């Protein structure tokens, strides 16, 4: 029999430090698969965040440069402008990208910086222990939204991807999830599209991925996957949010 599924070349052998059932490692793998398939391992540079994925450089077998919390888009801008023929991606949690990193992300998109952002939306601050995130949905319990997130006290969750779609420099934006095999495959295709947009020089591309955090949601991994389907997607509907890659000519 032939091996039809195994560890991607771009993912190192180190065991993941994530909690059982965490979406981060699924997303890592899927990115690794895309890098392998596009044959870009040697020219790819990743920018890991502060967040549960802060150690991502232990897993991705590509060059990586750490960003401080929220500044991945700025670091990636510096990298990509200096090395325009490399493939640069940032990897960011919802707190990282949609709270402290709001300005950097929106402006990178607005400038049409030609890199790809993987935005892992797990609706909480995972690494720091489950505080409210900008994407925590109304009613959701976290350690800093006692009694559930309340509109007037805590504000609304922020639809960052929809805002980024308004920016003129963004080329491709899709929201996916990694809570089921089919959604995982869609995520992979979305990431591939985003990388391809970058390879064609079309500007800013982003994939927002709804990702389970069983630990902070206080659910089993299987429950967490269901909760994404049943609750989370109502607030963050899946699908392509912006795609102008068809209209645009390659830039070289």
């Amino acid at each position, binding site marked *: 029999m032939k091996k039809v599924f195994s560890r991607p070349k771009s993912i190192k052998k180190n065991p993941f*430090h*994530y*909690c059982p059932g965490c979406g981060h490692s699924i997303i890592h793998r899927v990115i690794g698969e895309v890098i392998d398939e596009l044959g870009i391992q040697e020219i790819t540079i990743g920018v890991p965040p502060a967040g*549960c994925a*802060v150690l991502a450089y232990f897993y991705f077998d590509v060059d990586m440069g750490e960003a401080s919390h929220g500044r991945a888009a700025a670091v990636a801008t510096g990298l990509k402008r200096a090395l325009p023929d490399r493939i640069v991606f940032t990897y960011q949690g919802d707190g990282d990208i949609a709270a402290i990193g709001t300005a950097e992300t929106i402006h990178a998109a607005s400038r049409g910086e030609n890199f790809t952002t993987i935005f892992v939306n797990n609706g909480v601050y995972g*690494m*720091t*222990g489950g505080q409210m995130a900008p994407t925590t949905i109304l009613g959701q319990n976290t350690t800093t939204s006692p009694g559930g997130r309340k509109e007037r006290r805590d504000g609304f969750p922020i639809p960052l991807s929809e805002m980024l779609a308004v920016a003129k420099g963004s080329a491709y934006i899709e929201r996916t999830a990694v809570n089921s095999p089919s959604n995982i495959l869609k995520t992979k295709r979305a990431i591939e599209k985003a990388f391809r947009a970058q390879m064609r020089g079309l500007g800013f591309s982003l994939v927002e991925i709804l990702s389970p955090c069983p630990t902070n949601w206080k659910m089993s991994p299987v429950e967490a996957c269901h909760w994404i389907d049943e609750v989370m997607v109502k607030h963050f509907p899946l699908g392509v949010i912006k795609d102008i890659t068809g209209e645009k000519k390659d830039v070289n």
Partner: protein
Amino acid sequence: MLIKTVFSGFGGQGIILMGYLLATGGMYEGKNVTCLPSYGAEVRGGTANCTVVISKEEIASPVASEPDYAVVMNTPAMVRFQNQVQTGGIIFINSSLIEIRPIRGDLEIIEVPLNELSKQLGGNKATNMIMLGTFIRKTGLVSLETMINVIKDTFGNRPGIFKLNKTALSIGYNYLE
């Protein structure tokens, strides 16, 4: 008298709670106590530790590089702490889970088969309380009475949990008879 105890195991095993309850017990008995849980990124890997120092005098450092007692609830904890305990110290081992044993000859080893003992409670419950029971019996750091008071004050408003924990504590306490 200054006694340092380290509790260590998986995140889900109620490690921090054991430390907290022991420290509170020491306080109830009028001693100086410090309790230092591990925190943050360390938790992500699934490990949890908690260090408790109980003393008649002011406590210089809540950290225990050479604990008198170590309570290890899983194998990684065992690996990590077996070499740190002071000569003459005691290691409490969750023997249902941990297969290896320390090779040092200068330590006392108390094996507690938590999974088996917890069968009386309907299986795999309150294993931390069982261990705590054994621990206070062996070390005498805090009296059983005090510990029951602590548990009462902590879980008083949830009678079911209080009862379960109290029973578990006794099971552990009596295990060493």
